[in-house]
């Protein structure tokens, strides 16, 4: 009879080159030890299955429909079968406030009876709906899928003609900054997606769509910097500290507030202002397309914040903590529009040249007022009143 020990023991040794790195070798030995000697259940299940095959018998347990939602029908809407359509059914649309399933068994499947056999994925530690949910999640996910675009083919790159050297330098510097931004905007969701329990797959799916959007934005701004013959210019150390702070936010809700409501709200306004920053229809097209994507992320962040504050077991404590977090977060984001490597290219583009950088500061001042007011409006919408507490100056601190 075949035994598990024989099967595992018969596995070919890892190639020596893979073991040449001491860290890899240690990790690999630890992994093999864990799956050979600590996790016993998979081996027991394998043995059971091999024994059954050896007897020539069938199990057919998968045909047992008890506990399933067999017969539940979901009705497609005019545009197809969406998650919204699916979730109208109680069987598949009941989303737990807190899930106990830390495995891959899908919500709505016959999974209770296997609870003792299924593995526990330790990394799934976001188990409360309030940390990921927003009431517009399903709609935004559908919207994200159908409003994708392609930076390779949807931008008329062959028509790109840089205006003048100073404007092109400013455009390349702004593109470099936006490339930095888009890295963190994609990496923040990626840091959390694998921690969110699969019962909240709608949130995981939306965050994947956000990652795709941010990947496309990173791609398009990298291309823009290089396509005009200029190139990628200077990273902004001050702003990279802000990006690091976003990435390391203690909870998904806090990070989503900092990234999606505050940070992406700021970037959304910059994309909107692309109408003034761009000197060619090519650049305007880039900004308009990015703006559409960014507005989805801001919309998710706003209602995720609302969802969190409303569902928190101790709402007052949640509010107090979030205000404390925002006090710091706002200051961190302030580094973006005060850093000369970001502020000054914006002013040059707004003013239409380095000679008119002072005039451009008027545009930046207006942009600042728009960013702050829209941020405060979104906070209001989420039930998070920052009007009296906001630590960002309402007027741009520029002594004209």
């Amino acid at each position, binding site marked *: 009879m075949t035994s598990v020990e024989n099967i595992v023991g018969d596995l070919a040794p890892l190639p020596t080159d893979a073991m040449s790195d001491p860290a890899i070798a240690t990790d690999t030995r630890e992994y093999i030890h864990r799956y050979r000697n600590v996790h016993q259940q998979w081996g027991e299940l394998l043995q059971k299955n091999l024994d059954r095959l050896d007897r020539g018998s069938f199990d057919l347990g998968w045909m047992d429909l008890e506990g399933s939602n067999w017969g539940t029908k979901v009705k497609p809407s*005019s*545009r197809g079968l969406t998650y919204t359509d699916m979730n109208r059914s109680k069987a598949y649309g009941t989303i737990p406030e807190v899930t106990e399933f830390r495995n891959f068994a899908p919500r709505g499947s016959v999974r209770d009876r296997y609870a003792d056999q299924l593995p526990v994925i330790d990394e799934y530690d976001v188990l409360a709906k309030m940390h990921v949910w927003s009431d*517009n999640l399903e*709609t935004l996910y*559908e*919207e994200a899928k*159908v*409003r*994708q675009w392609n930076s390779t083919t949807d931008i008329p790159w062959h028509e790109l003609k840089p205006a003048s050297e100073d404007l092109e330098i400013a455009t390349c510097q702004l593109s470099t900054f936006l490339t930095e931004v888009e890295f963190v905007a994609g990496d923040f969701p990626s840091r959390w997606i694998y921690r969110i329990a699969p019962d909240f797959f709608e949130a995981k799916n939306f965050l994947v769509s956000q990652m795709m959007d941010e990947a496309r934005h990173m791609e398009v701004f990298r291309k823009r910097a290089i396509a005009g013959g200029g190139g990628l210019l200077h990273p902004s150390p001050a702003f990279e500290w802000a990006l690091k702070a976003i990435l390391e936010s203690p909870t998904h809700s806090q990070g989503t507030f900092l990234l999606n409501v505050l940070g992406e709200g700021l970037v*959304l306004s910059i994309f*909107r*202002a692309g*109408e*003034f920053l*761009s000197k060619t*229809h090519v650049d*305007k097209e880039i900004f*308009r*397309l990015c*703006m*559409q994507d*960014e*507005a*989805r992320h*801001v*919309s998710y962040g*706003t*209602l995720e914040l609302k969802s969190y504050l409303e569902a928190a077991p101790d709402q007052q404590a949640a509010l107090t903590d979030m205000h404390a977090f925002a006090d710091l977060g706002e200051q961190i984001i302030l580094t973006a529009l005060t850093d000369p490597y970001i502020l000054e290219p914006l002013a040059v583009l707004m003013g239409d040249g380095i000679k008119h950088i002072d005039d451009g500061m008027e545009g930046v001042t*207006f942009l600042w007022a728009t960013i702050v007011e*829209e941020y405060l*409006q*979104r906070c*209001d*919408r989420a039930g998070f009143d920052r009007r009296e507490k906001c630590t960002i100056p309402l007027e741009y601190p520029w002594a004209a």
Partner: protein
Amino acid sequence: MAAESAATERAIDSETVPFPSTHWFEALAAKMTEQRDHFEKLGACDCVAQLTIWDGPNDEEWRCQFVFDEFDVTGIREVTVADEPEADFILETDLETWREMVDSIFDGQGQPGLDHTLNRLSMPGTPIRLWSHDPLNRDAFYRFNQTIQHFINNCASFTTTWPEG
């Protein structure tokens, strides 16, 4: 069907359509339906937009709401102030601004000049004011901006007539 569609296009092409009027937006909606492939590429659009012209017919405010429903525009109707909460967002301006934009789109054969897009004209808050009762709904203008702009761009396919005076 193709011949019928072409005939409709010719009818619209040769038509003069008054602005502001629901007929003007119905003409755009008909073009949108004809260009389904193009609008599918831009992606589904779901929102209720309102246009307010301060100096409309008889020098009174004129309001029109139109419903974007996936790849079509439905429910075009004149409305009053009382209906405004039904709109996700409202674009309000004067007739002259709208006329300049339409002329720019016409001259550009369906492409507005760089300074005559809806986003450009509304970004500074003037000459077009973009607002909403709900900031989340206002953001729909940003989310669906390209569809809305391309919808308006189709005004180049017919001649717009303007109130005298």
